[in-house]
Structures are given as structure tokens and as C-alpha cells.
């Protein structure tokens, strides 16, 4: 009977994957078609195909909606994959990039730049220097995220780290870094509270090609690494002695897995600000769709991450139009109940 059930479910697994693969272009298209400024579908299609049209339409599609949609898809995939990697690495289903302090480190980097710029050039009106500060946010966040991952890795014992030590160190470091962010904002952040609060909420508002240019090289590198580490990463879920005796250089592949997860997370957070729960929930969702089939879970994680952030951003733009709900807020609102539901379903 169990054989029959698992036969059925493996059939269902491919169905889910097929549905997701179809869903991705649909959500992507919806993100281009729908939004605050009402454009007719024909206008959108014509602009996309011809690359030209009415100036207003070209601007909305090419400068606003398209880069934003691409960023949403990439960021969703990256956060979800990083969550999958960290859950494998720590053998802990509750792990995600919040855990390693990567998000917190990235936030600190961003806040430091904004506050620092404000303090150094207090004579200049804030709105005048606003543009240049915003442009340097991604780089600062990326640097902050990478540094905090190095810190957590080092404090966990570097090549001698154990999953448990990594989790504990990560949680402690994340708490300290987040406290520093709050402290900085409270002391010197008054003039920029709005800018920073919007970024910390995890938002894709106004993300343009400029942001994508920061993100793309890291995305390419991170996603390539994600493919390359997949086979060794599977063995990280066994106990250490088994992985070692199967010929895995454990400390090397742990380091490479952490490095890849950091790359994917820090570059994503640098552009959108911290978006929680994607890395935590999506791998569980994938496990629900394809129980026991890890390769399929990995693939579903990547696609579902993109679909969910795209859908979340679209919903955020539409529900309160013309105002926007940050995708980070929606992710938490949807992510937490989903997670609780998945938790209850577990035996």
C-alpha cells in the first residue's frame, strides 16, 4: 500500500513542478501588466515587443516594472535557495539566512552608510544627497552581510564548526547586529528614519536597472555555485562520520555551502532589504510537494521562491493602490501562517 501511495505521490511531484514552471511566466507577466498606472494589455505587449512606444508607457514598463520584476524573481529564488542550503548545513529545519546574521549584517552596513553620510555632510540638504546615498546602499549591505557571515563562521570554530555551534553563534550575532541597527537609528538616524525604515521593511519599490546591475553578477555567481554544490551538499544531512566515510571533505563543503548561501542572501538583501520567511518557508513547501526527492525539492525551492516574491510584490502594489505594502511585510503576513500550517502537518 505504501508503495502505491509513494507511486502516486511521485506522479504528483512532477505535476507540482509543471504547475510551478507554468506559474512563473504567468506571475512575471502579471507583474508587467498590472500596476498603479493603468495600461492596456495591448499597449504593454506592443511596448515589450517593439521596445518603443509612448514615452510614458516605455518608462513604466522598461524602467519600472521589468527591472522590478526581474529583481523580485531573482531575490525570491536566492533567499529560498539560501534557506535550503542552511537547513541542510545545520540539519535544522528552522534555519534561514536570518540565522547566520547575514540579513542583520547587511542591514547594519546599509544603516551605517545612510547615517554616516548624513552626519558627515550635515550642511547639505538631505534630499540633494539622497540619490547618491541610495545608490551606495547595495554595496554597503553586501559588504555588511559578507562580513557578518565571516564573523559567525570564525566564531563557530571555522573548519571545526559543528551545526549546533553555528546556529547558536548565528543567533547571538544576529541579535547583537540588530541591536546595533536599532541603536544607530535611535541616536543618529532621525533625518533618515523614513528612508531606512522603508529599506528595513524589505521592499522592491523603485528598484531599477541600477540595482539590478549590482545584483546580477552576484546572482549569476551564486546560482552557478548553487548548482555545483548540490551533490556534496546532500551528504551534509547525514551524521558527520557517514559524510566523511563517503569521501566528503566535510569542512571544505561546509565552508563552500556557507559561502554560497551568504553570496545569495547578502546580494539579495542588499537590493531589497531583509525579506524574512522566504528562506524558512519555501524549502518546507518544496518538501511538502516532493517528499523524499531532494533534487526536485531544490528545483521547486528555486522556482517557488521566485513565484512567491513576485506574487507578494504584485499583491503589495495592488491591494492598497496607489500606496504600496512592502513585500517584506506581506512575506511575513503570509509566511508565518504557512509555516505554522506546515508545522502542524508534520507527524
Amino acid at each position: 500500500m505504501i508503495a502505491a501511495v509513494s507511486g502516486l505521490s511521485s506522479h504528483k511531484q512532477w505535476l507540482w513542478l509543471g504547475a510551478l514552471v507554468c506559474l512563473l511566466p504567468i506571475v512575471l507577466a502579471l507583474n508587467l501588466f498590472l500596476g498603479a498606472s493603468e495600461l492596456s494589455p495591448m499597449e504593454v505587449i506592443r511596448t515589450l515587443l517593439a521596445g518603443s512606444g509612448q514615452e510614458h508607457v516605455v518608462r513604466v514598463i522598461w524602467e519600472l516594472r521589468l527591472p522590478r520584476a526581474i529583481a523580485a524573481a531573482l531575490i525570491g529564488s536566492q533567499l529560498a535557495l539560501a534557506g535550503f542550503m542552511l537547513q541542510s548545513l545545520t540539519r535544522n529545519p528552522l534555519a534561514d539566512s536570518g540565522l547566520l546574521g547575514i540579513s542583520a549584517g547587511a542591514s547594519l552596513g546599509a544603516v551605517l552608510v545612510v547615517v554616516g553620510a548624513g552626519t558627515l555632510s550635515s550642511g547639505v540638504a538631505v534630499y540633494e544627497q539622497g540619490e547618491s546615498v541610495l545608490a551606495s546602499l547595495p554595496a554597503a549591505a553586501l559588504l555588511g552581510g559578507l562580513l557578518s557571515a565571516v564573523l559567525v563562521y570564525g566564531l563557530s570554530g571555522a573548519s571545526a564548526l559543528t551545526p549546533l555551534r553555528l546556529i547558536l553563534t548565528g543567533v547571538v550575532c544576529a541579535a547583537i547586529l540588530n541591536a546595533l541597527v536599532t541603536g544607530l537609528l535611535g541616536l543618529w538616524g532621525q533625518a533618515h528614519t523614513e528612508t531606512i525604515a522603508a529599506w528595513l521593511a524589505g521592499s522592491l519599490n523603485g528598484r531599477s536597472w541600477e540595482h539590478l546591475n549590482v545584483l546580477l553578477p552576484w546572482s549569476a555567481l551564486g546560482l552557478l555555485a548553487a548548482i555545483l554544490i548540490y551533490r556534496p551538499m546532500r551528504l551534509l544531512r547525514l551524521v558527520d562520520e557517514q559524510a566523511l566515510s563517503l569521501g566528503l571533505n566535510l569542512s571544505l563543503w561546509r565552508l563552500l555551502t556557507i559561502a554560497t548561501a551568504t553570496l545569495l542572501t547578502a546580494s539579495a538583501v542588499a537590493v531589497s532589504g531583509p525579506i524574512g520567511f522566504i528562506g524558512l518557508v519555501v524549502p518546507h513547501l518544496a518538501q511538502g510537494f516532493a517528499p523524499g526527492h531532494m533534487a526536485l525539492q531544490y528545483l521547486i525551492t528555486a522556482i517557488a521562491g521566485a513565484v512567491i516574491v513576485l506574487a507578494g510584490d504584485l499583491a503589495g502594489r495592488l491591494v492598497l493602490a496607489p500606496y504600496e505594502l512592502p513585500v517584506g511585510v506581506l512575506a511575513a503576513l503570509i509566511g508565518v501562517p504557512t509555516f505554522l500550517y506546515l508545522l502542524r502537518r508534520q507527524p
Partner: protein
Amino acid sequence: MSLSAENVRLGYDGQVIVPELSVKIPRHKVTALIGPNGCGKSTLLKSLAGLLKPYSGGVSIDNHPLASMSRRELALKLAFLPQKPQAPESIRVRDLVGYGRFPYQGLMRGASAEDKKIVRWAMNETGVESYAERPIEALSGGQQQRVWIAMAIAQKAEILLLDEPTTFLDWGHQLEVLELLERLNTESGLTVVMSLHDLNQAAQYSDNVLAMKEGALIAKGAPTDVINADLLREVFRVEAECLIGKSGKPHSIAHSSVHKAQQSREAGPHNATPSEALF
């Protein structure tokens, strides 16, 4: 391929468990490691498997020190099954056994036809092929243990080390696992080294017994030469009687712990001798 440890000093975090020990594991034989809890059986097994670096001395396979081999090279020669293996959640038996082929695969290359053939062979040998598509959690303890052994033999290493492979199994499943190892040994010449708690099983299923006490090797050799009343008293602190069974292997029956025997002797004053009173 012969595995040997020479003057190894072993322990964890600076705490020495095995002060100095040398042992040679005979090829194509089943070796059982016996001794009380904490005597260093697991520690010795881990160092033989290259999982625990000795403080001094060294372990080698055919005179190649393990320390000079990469993990992958070692995995081609030696497989190890820990006491409490752990599987990724709801992984299918076939995929788990397939992990045994990891040392033969690259980063991008998946299972070759050869790999698939060997995985089928390993499942067939261990009698788990009918569960191939099931998640590991759906199996009983004995079935799971056979899956782990299937994964280990799919590695196609000549030496298989097992840390207490029968501890969490019921009696029938214990025998099934031991019979499986015995068969793998006789059919394909697999060298087996395992730690066991049950002396009678150690005697029945092994060619070679290593008895350990407090980090030292007390006795080694054929079961009939090693397992006797004196050894059981010294190593396990058990008063027992050892009979030679129909199979020609020693069979031990425990009477009492040495502790209790002493107590009852002390209680009867006519038996108490000065030397015993010292204990």
C-alpha cells in the same frame, strides 16, 4: 587490503581514552571487538576508519598511512557505519543507497549505469530491494539497518567497519544483520570489523575476537582462544561459565556479577580469605 594501527594514542579533546595500542586486522575475516562500555571500542573503530586522528602513532592500509590519503581515496578502500546513522527526511531507500556511490561521482555527473547496477546489487544483497521506493522512516529498525549496510557496501570498499550494528535491534533482527555480514564476508571476501555487546554473537559470527578493557587490548585471536571464564571475569567483571557449543564456538552463560559473588562470599565468613577481603 590489510588495516593496522601502530602504537596509536587516542582520545577526544585532550582526554586520552586509549593510551597505546597496536592491532592488525586480518584480511577477508570478520573481526569482533568486545569489551565493556567506555573501554574504547568506538574510539578504536573511529581511528581505524580514519575519523579520529591519533595523538601519536598511526593507522595504515597496506602500509599507506591514512593521514596521507584524501577522504575520497579512503572512501574507496574503507566504509564505516556509525552507531546512530541519520537520514535526510523521508529520503527514499534507493536514493540513500545511491549515496554509497558518492566517491565515484563528480560534481555534475549523476549516477552512471554502473552505479545503478551496483546500487541494485547492494539492495539485493541486503534484501531491501522491495522497499526501494519507500521513505526510510517507513521501515522497521532492522530494515533500516540493512539499508545502511546496503549504502556501505555500495561503496565497494574492501573493508567495512561497523560500530555496534546490533545495539538498537531486537533479537531476530540482530541475527539477521549478523548473518548478512557473515554472508557478505564469505561470498565476496569483505573484511568486517564490528563492535558487539553480545559475547555469544561475537563468538558465533566472527573469526577473530579483540577484547578491550580500559583502553587496552587484553586478548586477541580465535573466539575459542579468547573467550573463557577468566577473560569474562577480568574484562566484564562477570562470573560465567564457557561451554563449547555444537558449532565448536564458545558459549557463555553468566552466573552473576563478580561484585555480587564477592558480596555473598564475604557474607559467609568461612569463605573469606585475606586476599579476597582486599577487594
